[in-house]
């Protein structure tokens, strides 16, 4: 097993799947000649040529639709958005076309495609470039939504996504590309819809996904020093959600904090809390608390940005509250 960056793990998955199936192609802004804005597609143009690694104009709606059309007639497109913030321009193709084509055609047209790109907050990029979109996308029946937090999950989930016959939204953590971790070589598949218990503890559960997995792990480390043991449930996929994994953890710990990058109202956490109250009502010793971005657009100034984001400190405060330790 090699230690790879999240970026290289994604590149490895892309390369292996492009080699495996010649219906697979990658398109997006700057993916070919420039090797990708975040260098995820580095070296792929040389290996696979311009018909399979396709530079597009800056025209998200247009090339997202091209992906939909190609998928309808049997190709397996991977559409890269330079960031998911830009993908809002293409949302009609994702939500109204890709997600619904199988259903409104009565099962005649499958959509084997992936929409991928960086998601979530970064550093001082301001209001339009620092946003987490998973709750929007997870709302839509017909889509699957992956949010890997580690290099191994990034590789394993991307391979699953490319092989899936449904439109898969693949949200990469913009701040995760340089993070490192062990990644199994070759055929490493992480099934879509399966959470992973990243840390075991019996005092409180943190339910989280994506970049916030790292925050949760830090919180677990910090609290272990105080003798508080945390269960960290990494959802990995937010549609479908692994309700069983959530229930199992909360039934063990009796307390939960749901941690996410996005905003509060109708966030992923709202859904997770709903599952918890349904599945674990008689197991709860405290109301479930949520940690999320403050209910404001992302500010630019460093101090304001820090205050707006969910972090370890806020998470620890929430955990102590559900444990009646504050």
């Amino acid at each position: 097993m090699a230690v790879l960056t999240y970026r290289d793990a994604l590149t490895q998955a892309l390369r292996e799947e492009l080699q495996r199936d010649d219906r697979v192609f990658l398109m997006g802004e700057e993916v070919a000649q420039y090797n990708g804005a975040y260098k995820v597609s580095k070296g792929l143009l040389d290996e696979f040529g311009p018909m399979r690694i396709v530079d597009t104009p800056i025209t998200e709606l247009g090339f997202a639709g091209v992906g939909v059309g190609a998928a309808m007639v049997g190709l397996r497109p991977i559409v890269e958005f330079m960031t998911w913030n830009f993908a809002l321009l293409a949302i009609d193709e994702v939500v109204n076309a890709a997600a619904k084509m199988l259903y409104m055609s009565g099962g005649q047209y499958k959509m084997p495609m992936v929409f991928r790109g960086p998601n979530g907050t970064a550093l001082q990029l301001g209001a339009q470039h620092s946003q987490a979109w998973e709750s929007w996308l997870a709302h839509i029946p017909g889509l699957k939504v992956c949010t890997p937090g580690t290099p191994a999950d990034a590789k394993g989930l991307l391979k699953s996504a490319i092989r899936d016959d449904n439109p898969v939204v693949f949200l990469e953590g913009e701040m995760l590309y340089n993070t490192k971790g062990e990644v199994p070589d070759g055929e490493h598949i992480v099934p879509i819809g399966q959470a992973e218990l990243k840390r075991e503890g019996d005092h409180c559960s943190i339910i989280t996904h994506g970049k916030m997995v790292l925050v949760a792990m830090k919180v677990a480390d910090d609290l272990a020093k105080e003798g508080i043991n945390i269960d960290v449930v990494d959802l990995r996929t937010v549609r479908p959600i692994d309700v069983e994994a959530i229930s199992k953890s909360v039934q063990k710990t009796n307390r939960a904090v749901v941690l996410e990058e996005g905003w509060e109202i109708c966030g992923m956490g709202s859904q997770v809390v709903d599952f918890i109250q349904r599945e674990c009502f008689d197991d709860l010793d405290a109301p479930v608390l949520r940690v999320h971005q403050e209910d404001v657009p992302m500010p630019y100034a460093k101090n304001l940005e820090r205050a707006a984001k969910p972090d370890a400190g806020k998470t620890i405060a929430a955990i102590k509250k559900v444990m009646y330790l504050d």
Partner: protein
Amino acid sequence: MATKVTMEALSPTMEEGRLVKWNKNEGDQVAAGDVLAEVETDKAVMDLVARGDGVLRKRLANEGDSSPVGTLLAVIATPDENIEAIIGSAAGAAAAPAGQPAPAAQASQSAGSAPQTPAAKKESSGGSSIPQSAAESQGESSTPMQQRGGPQAGAPPSPPGRPAPPRPPSQPAAPRGNGAAHPGAPAAGGRQRTSPLARRLASEKGIQLGAIRGSGPGGRIVKRDIENAKATGGAGRSAAAERLAAEGDFKDIALTQIRKTIARRLSESNGPVPTFFLTAEFDATRAAEMRTQLAEMGDQYKASFNDIVIKAVALALAEHPEVNAHWLNDKIRQFNRIHVAMAVAIEDGLITPVLFDADRLTLWEISEKARDLAKRARERKLMPEEYTGATFTVSNLGMFGIDQFTAIINPPEVGIIAIGGVEERPVVIDGQLEVRQRMRVTMSCDHRAVDGATGAKFLQTVRRYIENPLSLVI
């Protein structure tokens, strides 16, 4: 700071209480835990204890007064503290409907349903460290985290639509959820708050929630409170509870169609509890002989007929779970544990203290507990958890010279046994007329749950035990 003394809900069903006697006078120094007064609930006379330290500055209720739960009865404060505002607020608070939460609580309950006020938004963001604003300007020094949740324990309930009275800036807010400051202060309106887990654990361990003081926010009973209750012996019956915890408390029996039809038709015909009666005459000669022999062995072995009947009924219930049950309208709940209540006449009514796990008590344990319960019942000193939670009831009027009567079922129980006096009567045995000690027993059965044959078989088992009394002591 001042502590309010309010009429507390001292029994599960209590809505108002009568102040029987003040134990402290105005000006007396009191400490948390001191008994301030005796209060008569709907069932018993209970102690009202101080929830804070200081001087009993003002008594607002007179002996003999009845007050709804939540009514301000007195104020404890430092000798020079101004308590006029608290006394003044009593009128307004009394006018507010019971259970009316303070505005802060309303805001937090609606958190999550947009649109919200800025304050509500802030309160609803768990773990938030957003810059402080509105609430702080009222003089609160708590953190935003602490502002979430229910009304602060001890804070005066405000009439709806009016902001909570400002706290003097010099006095920090009491930390919420601090069990030491306000142990077990019930939520506004007297409803005990319990976490779902704590409720389940208490049920599994057979712990009465009413006996526990919650350490969570607003007096919420949480997991650790149940664990502590267990560790300290809880309500005095945790040993049995622990012994049985693994077995589970009960089994719910879904209603079959025929059971539903029986229940519906018979209820139409005969009251909400369609009762029928089974009478049998037992031979108590051997039981009487045993009683005499036991008494000769020494006082500690004495047992009354009542004790013998309770023990026999408890053992019979173990063999007939269909009788050891509650009728819950949509199902029958059969209990795995046997808690036999005994009806005790008191001066102005009737109370039914419970012998928990009666089947597992020795005859002498039953005897001792029954005596103690009866005595304290007559003194009106029973705790609520001592007269609730029965699975079956025995009523005995033999001591009043009654030889046979019918008793009224105490729902949701499905049966009650009425015991008449033991008398010498002539009976024919093997063709010979003999004089024997006889006792008449009448069982009232809720026909929705118990059919005639079921009740009859149960009585047969009771007869077997009574007529072979050695089986009750070995």
